[in-house]
């Protein structure tokens, strides 16, 4: 099936920060993402509760 996967800018919030990774929840209960620290762009130290935004589309299984 031919999907139109268009990334959308979604807001979210940091749930957890460790020495290795950041866990964020996406607005609208769209899921929780864990990414390594190097994937986060910021000018300030990370802490729980900071608002984030990320371009995301649906996942297509190939």
């Amino acid at each position, binding site marked *: 099936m031919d999907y139109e996967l268009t990334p959308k800018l979604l807001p979210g919030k940091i749930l957890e920060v460790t020495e290795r990774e950041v866990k964020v929840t996406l607005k*609208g*209960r769209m899921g929780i993402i864990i990414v390594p620290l190097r994937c986060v762009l910021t000018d300030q130290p990370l802490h729980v509760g900071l608002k984030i935004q990320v371009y995301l589309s649906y996942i297509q299984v190939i």
Partner: protein
Amino acid sequence: MSITNETANLHQNDPAVLCCLRNKGTIISASDLEDPAIVPDLQESGLLTIPEDALTIGQVLGATLKEDTDAMTSLTAKLLDGYSNKAGESEDKRLSAPTDSGTSQPAGVIKFSISNVQGQIELPDGLSTIGLPFTVPPVEQKPEDKIIRTLTQKEFAVQKVCMGTETSFKHGTLTLRQDLCEDSLKADPLVKAAEMDIIPPDQRHVYANTIMDVMPIAAKVEGLLGEGATHVMSGVVIMLTGVDEKGVQVHEFGSCEGYLDENIRFGRLGCPDPEDIIIRVNVTIQENTGMERRGPYAAHKACDSIIQEIREVLKRAPAEACTKQDVFHDWKRPGKPRVMLVKEIMGQGAMHDNVLLPAEPAGVEGGQRNVDLGNVPVVLSPNEVRDGGIHALTCIGPSTKEDTRHYFREPLVNLMAEDEEINLVGVVFIGSPQVNDEKSYVSARLGAWAEALDVEGAIVTTEGFGNNHIDFAENIDQIGRRGIDVVGVSYCAYQGQLVVGNKHMDAMIELNKDPEGFENEILGDSTLCPQDAKRALLMLKTKMAGIPIEPANRQWEQAVIDANQQMIR
């Protein structure tokens, strides 16, 4: 990507853009032009600019290129010989009035031009009409609408709910047996604890675990679901909330734990009304079962066993205590356009499931789950839906979730069933499976139903967004490709934009109520409301009448919805 002649005809007034490199001397045809549907995307991405003097597709067809021209070039007068100057010709044609009709009549025919005639010609019975200078119209016998099923819902107002030693319902006071919750654990071994409390309308700032469902208290006193008599308690609803032994919310991701006054859009058809007393049943299920089919189902079973005891006392409520009576009919309306309503329900497994046709209104026992039925379309009569034929186990995002009370008060079912201009032949519930092959399988069966029911129009609705929009699109396609007019109804807005589409999705109703177009985690906020139902039905009637529907904007715009809403009286 070049286009067909058919597409070119549809887009005569859109700017003409070359799809590929073309050499000097080329006579422009549809196959040389870019698809107008993607031109706005190309403009947005900066690949293309349309100058002010750009020619339209209607103008360039048949013209000759004066020089070699690159792909993605907007065609202008400088580049072409022999283009047409007439812009918007096709529209002008449509507007011209047929003023000269009749001039080709043979000579000798007298023509009358009568501007105002009133009254009627009365013919006595038995008069021979032979030789009269006009024909007598045959007496039209309009087929009459027939009632095929009647459901009487008797409402019993509840003014007070309290706990006591035994369950009873007297003089507007509902008393609940204190150890009812403990007994409910017997319903399923996965249920580890259950408690119940009463939340009055003026004390809504209460923290709750995720709201799994909102249910009416209704009991069958005569006949089967959809006919006979049903007793319903008004002014009170059951709210099921749940968590697992580890403290994880049941069906996390679709959960909406928090303060009730912040997390519920009171007054939506699937939500408690502002003045309703809420009986909260909070269930704790075995750890790690919150996202499996058995976990949430166990919670619903336990809650249903509690409601069943209330149903038993409601059944015995004296007739004089009835405060309101609604009579619903299933109609057969011969001679009216046959239409069907398709409601897509979740069926991806785990906590995405529904119970169809339980023994008691909005109950659990005696019903079949759509996942077990393979998600194939199941037809219910409008009265079966209005009598609690669907018990929702669904956990999709809170704001688009159609819960059990929503189906009990479904606005589109009510509107279409009572509309005298259409013949609603049935309400089809079709599940949304996880895998694409299964989606295609059940959608094809829906198409077969539409054909077998011989409908002329259909409305397809869905809760949720994302994966189930694939079924939504395919369901619409299966109906549309059979030449049946179809209207789609869904939440899309910003966050839930459609990922697939087809040419039959040209009449769509947006359900979003969030100012920013998000799944805003407020229970029932972006579900189908009466005004959405009216827009959907008017859209279907418009389409069936052959009135063209303007193409949708590329992106969600509230202004379009507001403008359409103005048309509803």
